[in-house]
Each structure stands twice: as C-alpha cells, then as structure tokens.
C-alpha cells in the first residue's frame, strides 16, 4: 500500500485499541503489525508523541517475569481525539467506497 495512505492511521489504531483497555507496548505493536505492514519500531515513537500531546498516559505494573511492564492508558483528551479520528476515517472510507462502486449515474 502507498505510504501516503497510512498517514494518521496508526494513531487511530493505537487510540482505538486503548479505548477498550490498557495495553503494554509489546501487545500494541504485535496486534497492529499483525494487520498492517509496518516497521514495528515506529509505534514506540508514536506512543511517545501521543504521551507528549496528552492523549495517553503510562504507568508501571509488576509482572511475573522480570521488571515491571509499562502500560499505556488513554486520557479524556485522547478519547475525544480518537472519536474525531474515527469520524473522519469513516467519512473518508465512505467517500472512497462510493467512488469505487461507481456511483456516477445521476
């Protein structure tokens, strides 16, 4: 797929996953890269940007194996941003689908 298509989509994916529950980085990366062809390393910089923008927060939680894991959780601001992104995305996809299906006869 063309790179230009992916702009902003990753942010939408991360935020909408976090709407359901908190995730640690590995889970987010694994789930997204299962469905979308990306370099996994690009998700961590994105998570950091989302944190700086106040859309997500992090906390450490003890795990059975090794040091505590860093969990990501969505903020109220992040929820609002996510709703907007989902709306925009649906609008975009609907528009493209209408064109693809050939809705050109009046």
């Amino acid at each position, binding site marked *: 797929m063309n790179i230009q298509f992916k702009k902003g989509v990753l942010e939408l994916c991360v935020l909408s996953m976090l709407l359901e529950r908190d995730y640690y980085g590995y889970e987010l990366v694994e789930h997204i890269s299962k469905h979308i062809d990306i370099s996994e390393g690009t998700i*961590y910089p994105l998570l950091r940007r989302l944190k700086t923008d106040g859309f997500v927060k992090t906390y450490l939680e003890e795990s059975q194996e090794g040091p505590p894991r860093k969990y990501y959780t969505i903020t109220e601001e992040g929820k609002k941003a996510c709703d907007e992104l989902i709306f925009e995305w649906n609008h975009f996809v609907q528009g493209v689908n209408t064109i693809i299906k050939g809705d050109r006869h009046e």
Partner: protein
Amino acid sequence: MNRKEFIETLRADLKGLPQEEIDDIIYDYEEHFRIGLSQGKFEEDIARELGDPRNIAKMYKVSSKIDEAESNPSPKNLLKAMFSAMALGIFNFIIVLGPFIVIIALLIGMYGISVGLVVGGIGSIFGTILIPFSHYHVNLGFLPVTAVSLGIGLTCLGVLLFMASLYLTKLLYRGTVKYLKWNIDTIKK
C-alpha cells in the same frame, strides 16, 4: 543485529536528548525484546521486525526538536526542527523551502517598510517643528500643519504595519511547527 547491538546503536544515536528521556525510550525496547524472547522469538528476528535503530532514533529526535520549537519559540529552534525533519526525509524540502523563503523575504520587506514609515513620519514631524530653530531646512511647499499631520499619519501607519508583521510572523511560526508535526505522522516502512 542482536539485542545488544540494537540497543547500543539506538542509545548512541539518541545522544543529545535529555538522559532521562533516553533511559525511558530504551526501557520500551528492552521490554519489547524481553517479552519477544520469552515468547520464543530470536533476538535477530525481533530486531529486524523493529526496523533500523538509526531511523527510530531520528524519529525521536525530530519529535523532541519540534516540541522544543513549540514550547521555546526561537528562530534557532525552528531551524533545528526543520533540519532534523529534512534529515528524516519526510518531505521534499526543495518544494517546501522555496515558498518558505519567499514568505520570509516578504516579511522582512514588511518590517523594512514599517520602519521606513515610522522614521519618515517622525522626521516629518520633528523636521517641521524644528524649522524655526534651524538655519537650514528643506521646504517641500507643505504648510507646517500638513507636514505634521502627514508625519503623524505615516508614523501610525508604520506602527500598524509593524504590528501586523509581528502577528504574521507568529502565525508563520505556528504554521510551520504544525506542518512539521503533521509530516512526522507519516508511517515509514
């Protein structure tokens, strides 16, 4: 590339960021390797799937420079952010730089004109007022009242234009930061 090489390259290339931030970033990747390994993956495969640590480091650096330009506005910080974005190759800087330079030139022109107007205006006011005290003066054929009013008008116009230029400069700054932010959202393979 194994875990150690990946982490060391990333750490080396992150140099220049605050130490605290570097440690926090490295924590994410250490955790990623740890969980991957515990699921039976090989270090080399995890590293390959993560991608080139040099590119990853660049992504963090450009983000941090843009944040710096946003919270600490200065031409230097903006240029730093722009150059690090260019290093990442996220936009065609020849296409972007051309219009940017033209806008900057126009702004500088506006500042020049506003300063000229103020200087001319003040000159016109004081030149007229000081006529009685001076032996030499150039008479343009204006009445003193006309010359003084013209001076006041020019000065006001100059100040207004200067304020407009300041406002446009701020707008340009914010616009550039926003544009850079929008660009780093591009997902690269």
